[in-house]
């Protein structure tokens, strides 16, 4: 977790509570993955052995597991997390407003009213988003946990196939999700700047229309608008090209890993791998690891955008202010 957010949570006395809700949420995704992998294994094994009488029983068992797991999600986790979410927001908003109101006029002059309102309204939302919403800290932490535990299970099931999975997944992941997509935000930013150039041209096209008409300036204006529009296209296509290459390496990694697992697993049949259903289970844990890696990668990028809010809140909280009685 980011140091500033950690400090804010500690300041408002929510750190322990937050760790508790994280611990309560951690097993959910992992157990969901475990149910999926074992469900596939059980069904395929029963099918292989021709035990049709047990198929319905297995269907009922896994449906029950699913209901229990999601039931835990709706009762314990949802109830605790909604309460924690509100408590965090209340304490943070209260502390922030308290600090703002306890300043003197001179200290206040350093900030515009709009700036303070943004901190109180938007930045608190950003800290909350960082901690709880998808593709942020919570999901990144859960996905990291998922990767770790799926790796451990895969290692226990078959160390050789685990190494094979790592060898195929990691280089492609580094290439596609770290090296290739690294420049995408840069091109996105450039594209946004070009869009601003385009709208900067639309304004005179509307407001200076009479001048353009009288002085026959349509051609030069359209040329300039086209330059701006083409620049948006160029920057977006650069970003899309990188996304396409990233997809190329992701699908290569996914398919290659899957096929190699099937082929190598087949050659180990009866030695390191019990049977095809177990091999299928191994592929499921590999899929969980890959899914986790993508979530962690997306989460790390998502968190960056919300961190600016945390820094701005900390700036206000760090400054000393007299406490308002009753708070």
């Amino acid at each position, binding site marked *: 977790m980011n140091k500033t957010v950690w400090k804010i949570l500690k300041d408002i006395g929510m750190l322990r509570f937050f760790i508790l809700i994280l611990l309560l949420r951690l097993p959910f995704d992992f157990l969901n993955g475990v149910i999926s992998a074992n469900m596939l294994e059980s069904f395929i094994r029963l099918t292989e052995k021709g035990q049709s009488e047990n198929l319905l029983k297995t269907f009922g068992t896994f449906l029950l597991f699913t209901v229990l797991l999601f039931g835990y999600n709706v009762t314990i986790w949802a109830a605790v997390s909604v309460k924690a979410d509100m408590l965090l927001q209340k304490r943070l908003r209260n502390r922030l407003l308290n600090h703002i109101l306890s300043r003197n006029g001179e200290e206040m002059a350093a900030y515009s009213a709009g700036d303070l309102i943004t901190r109180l309204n938007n930045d608190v939302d950003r800290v909350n988003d960082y901690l709880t919403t998808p593709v942020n800290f919570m999901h990144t932490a859960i996905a990291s946990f998922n990767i770790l535990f799926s790796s451990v299970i895969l290692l226990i099931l078959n160390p050789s196939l685990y190494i094979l999975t790592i060898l195929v997944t990691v280089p492609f992941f580094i290439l596609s999700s770290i090296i290739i997509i690294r420049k995408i935000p840069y091109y996105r930013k450039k594209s946004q700047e070009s869009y601003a150039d385009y709208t900067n041209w639309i304004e*005179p096209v509307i407001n*200076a229309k*009479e001048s*353009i008409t*009288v002085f*026959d300036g349509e051609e030069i204006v359209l040329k300039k608008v086209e330059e701006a529009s083409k620049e948006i296209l160029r920057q977006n296509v650069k970003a899309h090209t990188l996304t396409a290459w990233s997809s190329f390496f992701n699908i290569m990694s996914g398919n290659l890993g899957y096929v190699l697992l099937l082929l190598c697993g087949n050659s180990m049949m009866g030695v390191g791998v019990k049977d095809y259903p177990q091999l299928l289970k191994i592929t499921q844990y590999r899929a969980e690891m890959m899914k986790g890696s993508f979530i962690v990668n997306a989460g790390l990028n998502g968190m960056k955008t919300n961190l600016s809010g945390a820094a701005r809140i900390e700036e206000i909280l760090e400054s000393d202010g007299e406490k308002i009685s009753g708070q």
Partner: protein
Amino acid sequence: MIELKNVSFNYENASIFENLSIFVAEGEKIGIVGESGCGKSTLLKLMAGLYVPSSGEIIVDGIRAPEEIIKKVSVVMQSPMLLPLSILENITMGHEYEDSKIEKIIESANLKKWIDSLPEGLNTYIGDSADELSGGQAQRIAIARAMFKDSKNLLLDEPTSALDGENAASVLEAINHFTEGKTVVHVTHRKKHLEGYDRIFLMENGQLTEIWNRYKEKT
């Protein structure tokens, strides 16, 4: 030559003019004065072909279609309406030009000294820094643009209204440099800007009344 024959104009169901007629001979200079909001600028835009009359006819150099009239006139408006381009592009609007013509124009528009002081001269971009231009500099660029178009008919819509005395004088001087021999319609609320004009009209209640005629030499 500019002629309005029984022109009426409505805007958002309100009548601005009813049966307005005026004839401006080739090479004649006329001024139109009146209170703010009396419809002077609207009249000028009708003459420029930028608005279409509800009824009646507008004829400029024998042409009646508004899209064609636009090609026959030059306009300097209250706001210079500069575009996010270089000074040169704002003057030429991307059309072909000869250096000697541009030199002459910036001299006549009282722009030379200022442009020579700029590091990039005529190629200085005035997009984002349009606010850094003084009102006088921006308006003189607009006049240079009108000079570049070099139409026989020049329509001026209070080109100095937003300027202080010194800047206004400089702009008026620039205008006087190139109105010689042109048909000019100058709309203003300051009668003193119309010295030397052939006729002056007062616009009131949607009607034009002649208040000065050089040929008759009476007020």
